[in-house]
């Protein structure tokens, strides 16, 4: 019989090709934002926009280490000079004053449009007299708050007021040779902002490469360059690095796990042909799962593929079960005795994972869909295609040498029943003792950024006096002008909180770029030249300043009074532009404009970074504009908590579905208990083990438990079936060899996953690997004594 006459094989081949085409059609996404959910609440939606593309997401902190202080400062200056000429970097700050020369010029030249000190009262004769007298006194007292050189051009002190406002809250790093250094002086520090947002990962990656190659050239040009090292940190670096790490991990996990499974199968089959046949269901499963995810989501996350790699171990089992029974051409025995059991095992897996597909967390939904489709495809291939491809004289090498010891071991395992109960009790005790802190409610546990990298980032931020932004007031408005007007009203309220010592400081895009309405109001407050000179004449009586000295002032006021309001691009070419760009953003999808006012805590609140949120909310309500106070940490954790809760419900529903299916199929309470007991014990012991090791359970551990149930149920079902249907001792041996190898392949692939440095993968791996081993041991130990009687 040729292959051509077997329709199932042809159908399978065609489906495989189509699935592969579908799978490859949509992209594989590796940045974590693709794994994060779309948020239902407006605040969460803004938050996710911020996470993905906000100003914070573009920040890069650089540290230059090694060499001596002078060499580091020199390298800092050389690198900054290089990068300032590159449009990939919108801001390059290292403490050098040149970096803000354009900023100071902008502030000085536009002082009468920018300063909130410009009011009709302030420019009355009395108001002018008061502010000029104060400026002269400032020069006299001379603690340096007012420079004497500004007295003639800016006698009312607007520049000082503006610079004070801008400098408020900005940290002052230590300086070495005119460049920023860490608190201990051992590192030079630079702060960059990239032009590319996180959505443009390729652009960010290119900018970081430019940075590295620029540093190599700086090193080459310096005599001591070789001793220096550059380290970069910040959200943009994390995004690019975790993307690279995920890609790298998924590749090596695939290679290692495939190699292990292949070696195990070779050890069992001792035939390359059998091995090749055995991998067909696996390949089919992976391609089908990938195609299903690709078609439903429009993209596949690399983590889903990485997880799919672990599926290799599970799908390899089906072929093992088949080969065991096909040995010597006995495939009728397979269909009658083994297939129904595998079908039931498959059904329980599908029932368990079907609930995940309903999850609103895209990553989980992808995992669920991938698993279901992959397992079904692998099982169907094993059932309908593989038997047709088996040669008539198919034989496995003698299994007696493996089967006998395994059978003995299984026999011995039943003496360990007592130990199972002891383990179970211990696990329950551990769980009971820590029941209130079983679950981690912090979303950061899912972050792929290693702890050491997070700590380094925090250290540099502390050196720079730039703590992580936790609170942001978002002003929502239909257009740019109204967003700025809203920000101005909110700013007045927040300033009151600063004065009252409730918050440390805040940033405001309207401070650098006031709304047109406010600029016009300030222009209206400025008197015409003749009027101003008359008022100055009165104001300066008795003061040591002649009105004639203030011609520059009169001209500057007249220019401000008659000029067009500053346009949106007024800040171009200054470092201030980035601050406004980041804080005043047009939302995607025609949703209007957003002004963002990040709030900094008081120094006394810095350890926790928490401000008095109710007071801030009250102040916002008083501003009478459409605002939201985003607490980044609370919002993210709340969002994560909601998904965790949803996942708990879904998992419980999945477990219930598995239970119902088993009950309906086994039709015997006694058998149901026998199948479920080892599973339940294994799940509880895995939880106990994790908790005892100090691990807090997350969403992904939950998924791992669900997978343990799905895989473990197969073992228990096989033992159950073996007891009922088989009296042939050779069959019983084969059963033990098959189940043992099936669990070994699963252990290998998930065990490899457990060593991943990507938390999402290692969490699943470290749950499933022990779960599978325990499921098998418990299934053997709790099997009824009749089975193995010889």
């Amino acid at each position: 019989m040729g292959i051509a006459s077997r329709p199932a094989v042809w159908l399978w081949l065609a489906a495989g090709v189509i699935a592969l085409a579908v799978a490859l059609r949509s992209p594989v996404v590796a940045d974590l934002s693709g794994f994060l959910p779309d948020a239902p609440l407006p605040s969460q939606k803004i938050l996710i926009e911020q996470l993905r593309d906000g100003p914070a997401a573009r920040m890069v902190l650089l540290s230059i280490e090694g060499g001596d202080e002078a060499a580091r400062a020199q390298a800092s200056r050389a690198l900054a000079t290089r990068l300032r000429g590159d449009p990939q970097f919108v801001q390059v700050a290292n403490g050098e004053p040149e970096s803000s020369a354009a900023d100071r010029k902008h502030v000085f030249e536009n002082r009468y449009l920018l300063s909130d000190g410009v009011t009709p009262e302030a420019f009355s004769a009395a108001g002018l007299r008061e502010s000029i007298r104060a400026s002269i006194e400032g020069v006299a007292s001379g603690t340096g708050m007012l420079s004497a050189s500004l007295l003639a051009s800016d006698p009312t002190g607007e520049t000082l007021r503006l610079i004070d406002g801008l400098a408020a809250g900005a940290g002052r790093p230590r300086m070495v040779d005119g460049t920023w250094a860490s608190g201990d002086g051992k590192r030079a520090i630079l702060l960059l902002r990239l032009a590319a947002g996180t959505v443009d990962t390729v652009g960010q990656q290119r900018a970081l490469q430019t940075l590295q190659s620029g540093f190599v050239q700086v090193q080459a040009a310096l005599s001591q360059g070789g001793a220096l090292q550059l380290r970069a940190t910040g959200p943009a670096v994390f995004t690019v690095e975790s993307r690279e790490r995920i890609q790298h991990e998924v590749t090596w996990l695939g290679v290692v796990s495939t190699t292990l499974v292949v070696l195990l199968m070779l050890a069992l089959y001792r035939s390359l042909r059998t091995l090749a046949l055995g991998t067909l269901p696996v390949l089919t499963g992976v391609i089908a799962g990938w195609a299903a995810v690709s078609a439903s989501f429009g993209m596949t996350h690399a983590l889903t593929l990485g997880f799919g790699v672990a599926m290799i171990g599970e799908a390899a089992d089906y072929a093992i079960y088949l080969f065991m029974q096909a040995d010597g051409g006995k495939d009728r025995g397979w269909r009658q005795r083994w297939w129904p059991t595998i079908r039931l095992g498959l059904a329980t897996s599908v029932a368990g994972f079907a609930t995940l597909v309903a999850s609103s967390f895209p990553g989980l939904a992808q995992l669920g869909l991938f698993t279901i489709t992959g397992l079904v495809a692998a099982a169907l291939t094993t059932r309908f295609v593989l038997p047709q491809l088996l040669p008539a004289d198919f034989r496995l090498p003698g299994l007696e040498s493996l089967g006998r010891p395994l059978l003995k071991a299984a026999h011995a395992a039943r003496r360990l029943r007592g130990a199972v109960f002891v383990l179970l009790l211990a696990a329950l005790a551990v769980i009971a003792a820590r029941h209130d802190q079983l679950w981690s409610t912090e979303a950061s546990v899912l972050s792929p950024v290693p702890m050491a990298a997070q700590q380094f980032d925090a250290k540099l931020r502390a050196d720079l006096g730039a703590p992580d932004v936790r609170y942001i007031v978002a002003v929502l408005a239909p257009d740019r002008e109204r967003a700025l007007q809203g920000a101005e009203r909110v700013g007045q309220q927040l300033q009151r909180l600063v004065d009252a010592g409730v918050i440390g400081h805040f940033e405001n895009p309207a401070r650098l770029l006031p709304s047109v309405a406010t600029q016009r109001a300030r222009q209206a407050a400025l008197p015409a030249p003749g009027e101003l000179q008359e008022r100055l004449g009165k104001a300066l009586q008795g003061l040591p300043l002649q009105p004639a000295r203030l011609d520059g002032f009169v001209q500057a006021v007249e220019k401000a009074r008659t000029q067009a309001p500053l346009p949106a691009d007024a800040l171009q070419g200054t470092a201030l532009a980035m601050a406004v760009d980041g804080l005043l953003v047009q939302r995607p999808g025609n949703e209007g404009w957003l002004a963002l006012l990040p709030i900094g805590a008081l120094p006394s609140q810095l350890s926790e970074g928490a401000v008095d949120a109710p007071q801030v909310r009250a102040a916002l309500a008083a501003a009478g504009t459409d605002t939201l106070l985003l607490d980044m940490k609370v919002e993210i954790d709340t969002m994560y908590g909601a998904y965790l809760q949803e996942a708990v419900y879904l998992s419980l529903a999945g477990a219930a579905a598995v239970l119902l299916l088993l009950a309906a199929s086994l039709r015997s309470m006694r058998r149901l208990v026998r199948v479920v007991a080892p599973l339940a014990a294994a799940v509880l012991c895995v939880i106990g083990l994790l908790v005892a090791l100090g691990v807090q359970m997350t969403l992904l551990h939950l998924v791992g438990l669900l997978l343990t149930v799905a895989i473990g149920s197969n073992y228990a079902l096989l033992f159950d079936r073996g007891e009922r249907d088989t009296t042939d001792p050779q069959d019983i041996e084969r059963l033990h060899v098959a189940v043992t190898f099936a669990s070994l392949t699963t252990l290998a692939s998930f065990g490899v996953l457990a060593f991943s440095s990507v938390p999402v993968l290692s969490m699943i791996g470290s749950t499933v690997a022990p779960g599978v081993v325990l499921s098998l041991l418990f299934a053997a130990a709790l099997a009824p004594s009749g089975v193995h009687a010889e």
Partner: protein
Amino acid sequence: LGDQVKAILLAALIACAISPLAASERFSTMELMLLLAHRGPVEATFTERRFVPVLDRPVESAGRLRFVPPARLEKHVERPRPESMVVDGDLLMLQQGNRKRSVPLTALPEAALLIDSLRATLAGDLDALQRGWTLSLTGDRARWTLSLEPSAASLAQLVSSVRIEGRENDLYSIEVQQTDGVRSVMQVRSLPPRTDR
């Protein structure tokens, strides 16, 4: 912070350092340093006249200066309006009305250099002082003048010269010429040592 801070600091610190100068036949800068090395807290009143190019007449301020070895220096302006500037260890604290600011000296390298050289002076470390300044002492015991010219580039950006005039052991004038044209002349009168110390 403005450039003036540094000039003022300089003046204040020198005033503290030098006022109870002991009289001697002829002193070198070395002898001056040695005299300064063994003193307790110093307190003085001052009157300062500041000549600013755009103003018709000099503006005046007055207040107190204080030095507590080894590292605390204070300038308290009492009129025309209260302001104070205190350096303690590595922290510079400014107060104007109810506005307070604290700045670590590490963030102000020029001021730090200045303060460090004056602390060195107070400890009698001539070498340290000479790292930033060129010193010359003229006149005799009855009427002497100590002139300082900045040799460090960062100081030279702010200050053209400093002249301190004294008579016997009493210092009476510190004159600072800034590079921006502002000149200040400070009259200092040291107070008798406190009895509670």
